[in-house]
């Protein structure tokens, strides 16, 4: 140990030690507790102790024991005691406490105190602690203050307090008593306007909001007098609100309320909100509709004025706050289209990058407009646009440039929002442009991932962004026109190149189907050739971009012959075969070493590599039927044989299966291993937001038969191989039981299958299939179903599990059919039994129901 540290320790040992610091706080609060219990403790000492207690409160120490003491301090007749007593009461108590009844008398007295500051403290406390009892007992005193006081200070607080009492009074007792005409007579009629400070205005606004919100929440059966009075008064008050708002919204420097040259943005927003509520009431409750009839036009006028005037002082946060409130009101009230477009323009303006020019014009150390001001308006604008994009998708789509620009904002929440909005406005017309933007964005994010320098978002965040983008992009592959297939493929490969090392292989389902479904054969093959050439030219295989490799492997299996033919000699059979050999070695080694080193930590990589080998096996098999060179064919066979003793059962099984097919006569083999047909894709959104992609064929039964391998391939994608090595632990699965009304629709010595009607309506049917192994447990169960052409099928996953199913253990699968006609079903099951035999079961079933 360094000599210094030693000397420090020696120094500490030499000094005498003091009390343990950790106990100091506990001791303090114990001391305070004892002190406060002393009834003879003078108020001054009490105050000191309460002050200490409040400090402990901020530190998060328990302070409830002193609640009564706080209330007692209010009982003092000294201002200094009352002030602290009220402060402590507001902090230490909340509306839920029974103790509040102790306050009733004290508050009652202080509301009538000659000292206006004591009255104000009582009002503040009542406002923050208005339990039902307190409100009931004290509202007359608050109304009395509004009626009699001529001090704006007291009136401000009384109105705020009253607003709180009203909103809590669902029985409308206060509304019945409160003389609403007072607002007009006492405050709005000249010569009383001197009472109308901004504080009083804020208070009046709050009271009006409370009244309106309460009325909106209550269903009014008959129409009592006081409700009519409210309507009449709202009709009278409304023009005043409009006038006040429009007079505030002009440039007029008044330092007391000025914020960056804007007159009291707080009051402006409060009036806008009040107007919003009143018009909401007028819109929703018939009784109040005269308000709308009479003032709708003026209301629209002032909104137009607000948007115009405020645009003069753009870039200032207070102005933006007002404009933001205006646009939210426009959309909440679903105001007319020209206003809605105005609103969208305002929000789009918030997104403009030029806005960042705003800034440090302000003097003083606390700059209001520091750099992220710009971010904040972007955030609120995107947020609002996302909420209203359904109302005006096209108008918002016009601003796509600004929206895309926000993809590059350093703030991840803004990135996400602009992504969400980009996908919301994406349509056939702007598809190419926006996808290009998104590819640029993916480029940026993946680059950021690689850069070791200054990283502004972390790895997890970029992964999240990429996955979100990919998930949404694949759903848009359908939007491409048939004459845009080339672009579509180019985009797809570009996306994979950028992100293939960061997304999971499960996502490739949609990519494969998209490639598979490209109708223009020449375009498809040319594109593959291009990519394979550039891929191989790099010399060594990029191991990190696993998804890219997977697509290559799959394409080679499907189109190997066409690729070599169309490559003008750039790609030879041998190259393709060697490529598969290399990858096979790569993934076999890594999967073996990872399972050896750390089976649990690298589970994902391990599973991915198993998936890759499965694809390599299938691809090798398929390619072998498409080429002629004996040496190459033998190499492919070796790849397959390579896994005959694989520790992974699934691979072992596949290897053996494939070898059997491999040895079939060439013509039969070729027929079995033809390219996959076109797939119709259906996406079902489950309640829990996980997407199950299931594929049903176009109900062309022969094509299913011809391509038995197709099912196999698809199951590779949709069901991730579990690490089903022989030693793998069985998952705990909840036991399913057969419903009483389930009927048997198929059985053989292997299993019995039941169906059960969940719901059948014209156009829609929902069934559940139940599978029960009879003689042997199933290591795996895969099911695929087809329905007639005029119907569409959505197939759920096998629940609770599709592997390691015991004898007599029930599993189920949901089956949703949409369309018309008789309900017929072709079911095809691939089963791997407990002793690792593969069995196929196929049967047709006619349901009794028709849709």
């Amino acid at each position, binding site marked *: 140990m360094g000599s210094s540290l030693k000397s420090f320790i020696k120094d500490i040992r030499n000094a005498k030690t003091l009390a343990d610091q950790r106990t100091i706080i506990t001791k303090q609060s114990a001391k305070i507790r004892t002190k406060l219990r002393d009834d003879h403790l003078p108020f*001054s000492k009490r105050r000191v102790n309460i002050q200490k207690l409040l400090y402990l409160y*901020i*530190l*998060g120490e*328990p302070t409830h024991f002193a609640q009564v003491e706080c209330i007692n301090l209010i009982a003092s007749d*000294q*201002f*200094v005691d009352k*002030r*602290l007593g009220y*402060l402590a009461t507001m*902090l230490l108590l*909340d*509306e839920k406490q029974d103790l509040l009844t102790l306050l009733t008398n004290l508050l009652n007295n202080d509301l009538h105190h000659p*000292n206006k*500051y004591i009255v*104000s403290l009582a009002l*503040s406390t009542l*406002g*923050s602690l208005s339990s039902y009892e307190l409100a009931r007992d004290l509202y007359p005193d608050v109304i009395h203050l509004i009626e009699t006081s001529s001090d704006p*200070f007291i009136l*401000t607080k009384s109105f705020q*307090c009253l*607003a*709180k009492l009203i909103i809590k009074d669902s029985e409308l007792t206060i509304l019945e008593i409160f003389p609403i005409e007072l607002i007009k007579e006492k405050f709005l009629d000249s010569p009383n306007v001197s009472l109308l*400070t*901004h*504080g009083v205005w*804020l208070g009046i606004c*709050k009271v009006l*909001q409370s009244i309106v919100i309460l009325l909106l929440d209550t269903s009014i059966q008959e129409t009592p007098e006081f409700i009519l009075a409210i309507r009449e008064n709202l009709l009278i008050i409304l023009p005043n609100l409009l006038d006040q708002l429009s007079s505030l919204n002009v440039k007029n420097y008044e330092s*007391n*309320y000025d*914020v960056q040259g804007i007159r*009291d*943005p*707080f009051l402006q*927003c*409060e009036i806008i*909100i009040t107007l919003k509520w009143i018009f909401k009431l007028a819109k929703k409750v018939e009784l109040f509709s005269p308000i709308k009839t009479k003032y709708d036009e003026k209301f629209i006028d002032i909104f137009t004025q607000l948007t115009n005037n405020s645009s003069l002082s753009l870039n200032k*946060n207070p102005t933006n*706050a007002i404009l*933001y*409130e205006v646009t939210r009101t426009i959309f909440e009230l679903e105001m007319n289209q020209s206003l809605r477009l105005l609103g969208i323009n305002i929000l789009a303006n918030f997104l403009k990058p030029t806005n960042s020019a705003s800034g440090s014009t302000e003097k003083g*150390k*606390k700059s*209001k407009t520091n750099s*992220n001001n710009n*971010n*904040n308006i*972007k*955030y*609120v604008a995107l947020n609002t646009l996302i*909420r209203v994009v359904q109302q005006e998708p096209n108008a918002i789509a016009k601003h796509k440039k600004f929206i895309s620009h926000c993809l590059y904002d*350093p*703030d*991840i*929440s*803004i990135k996400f929002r602009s992504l969400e909005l980009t996908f919301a406005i994406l349509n056939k017309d702007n598809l190419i442009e926006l996808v290009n933007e998104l590819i640029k964005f993916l480029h940026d994010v993946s680059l950021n991932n690689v850069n070791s320098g200054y990283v*502004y978002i972390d790895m997890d965040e970029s992964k999240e962004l990429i996955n979100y983008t990919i998930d949404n992009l694949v759903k848009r592959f359908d939007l491409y026109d048939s004459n845009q297939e080339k672009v579509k493929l180019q985009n797809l490969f570009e996306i994979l190149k950028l992100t293939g090392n960061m997304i999971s292989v499960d996502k490739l389902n949609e990519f494969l189907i998209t490639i598979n479904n490209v109708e223009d054969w020449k375009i498809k093959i040319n594109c593959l050739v291009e990519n394979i050439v550039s891929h191989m030219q790099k010399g060594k295989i990029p191991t990190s971009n696993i998804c890219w490799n997977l697509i290559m492997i799959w394409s080679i299996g499907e189109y190997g012959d066409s690729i070599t033919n169309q490559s003008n000699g750039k790609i030879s059979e041998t190259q393709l075969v060697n490529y598969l050999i290399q990858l096979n070695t790569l993934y076999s080694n890594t999967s073996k070493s990872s399972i050896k080193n750390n089976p649990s930590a690298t589970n994902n990589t391990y599973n991915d590599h198993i998936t890759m080998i499965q694809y390599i096996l299938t691809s090798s098999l398929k390619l072998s039927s498409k080429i002629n060179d004996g040496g190459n064919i033998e190499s492919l066979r070796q790849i397959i044989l390579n896994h005959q003793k694989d520790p992974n059962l699934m691979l072992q099984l596949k290897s053996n299966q494939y070898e059997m097919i491999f040895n079939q006569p060439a013509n039969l083999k070729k027929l079995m291993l033809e390219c996959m047909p076109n797939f119709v894709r259906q996406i079902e959104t489950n309640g829990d937001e996980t997407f199950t992609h299931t594929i049903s064929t176009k109900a062309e039964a022969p094509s299913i038969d011809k391509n038995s391998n197709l099912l196999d391939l698809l199951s590779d994608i949709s069901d991730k191989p579990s690490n089903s090595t022989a030693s793998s632990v069985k998952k705990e699965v909840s036991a399913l039981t057969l419903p009483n009304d389930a009927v048997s629709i198929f059985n053989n010595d292997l299993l019995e299958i039941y169906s059960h009607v969940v719901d059948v309506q014209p156009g829609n049917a929902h069934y559940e299939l139940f599978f029960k192994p009879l003689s042997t447990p199933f290591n795996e169960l895969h099911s695929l179903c087809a329905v007639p052409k005029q119907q569409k099928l959505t197939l759920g996953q096998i629940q609770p599990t599709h592997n390691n199913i015991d004898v007599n253990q029930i599993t189920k699968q949901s089956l949703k059919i949409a369309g018309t006609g008789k309900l017929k079903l072709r079911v095809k099951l691939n089963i791997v039994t407990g002793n690792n035999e593969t069995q196929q079961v196929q049967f047709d079933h006619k349901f009794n129901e028709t849709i």
Partner: protein
Amino acid sequence: MSQIKYLLLISRQGKIRLMKWFIPLSSKEKTKIINELTQTILARKPKMCNIVEYSDYKVVYRRYASLYFIVGITPDVDNELLTLELIHRYVETLDSYFGNVCELDIIFNFTKAYDILNEMTMCDGSLAESSKRNILQTIATMDSMDDHDKLDRVLS
């Protein structure tokens, strides 16, 4: 209705310096909010926006003089931009009262910081007074009344 749910002052060192709850919460819930928000807000980079989604709330914060002023509001109801102004108004008022407010002032005069907040906001966290001058005048008058009382006691 524009109302803030809570206001927290947290130092750059992660210490809580002031808290005001406008909604009733158990002390367990409060501790949870404070701890989680301290973590979240302190980790925010300067270029990020000042609005964070947190639990049922949206949180708007501003960093001033080594303190984070953190305000919880209701998503889709409250105006985030106006909340930033409200924080700023509070800071300005503290600034005028203390003369360039610093963390130490808040630690030793936290009751004053509360007093100012209570003049500015009321009830369930709604803004009651938008004039800085009015707030400061009220506080000054109440302060001098405090002194009166204390003097009285010395005299008697």
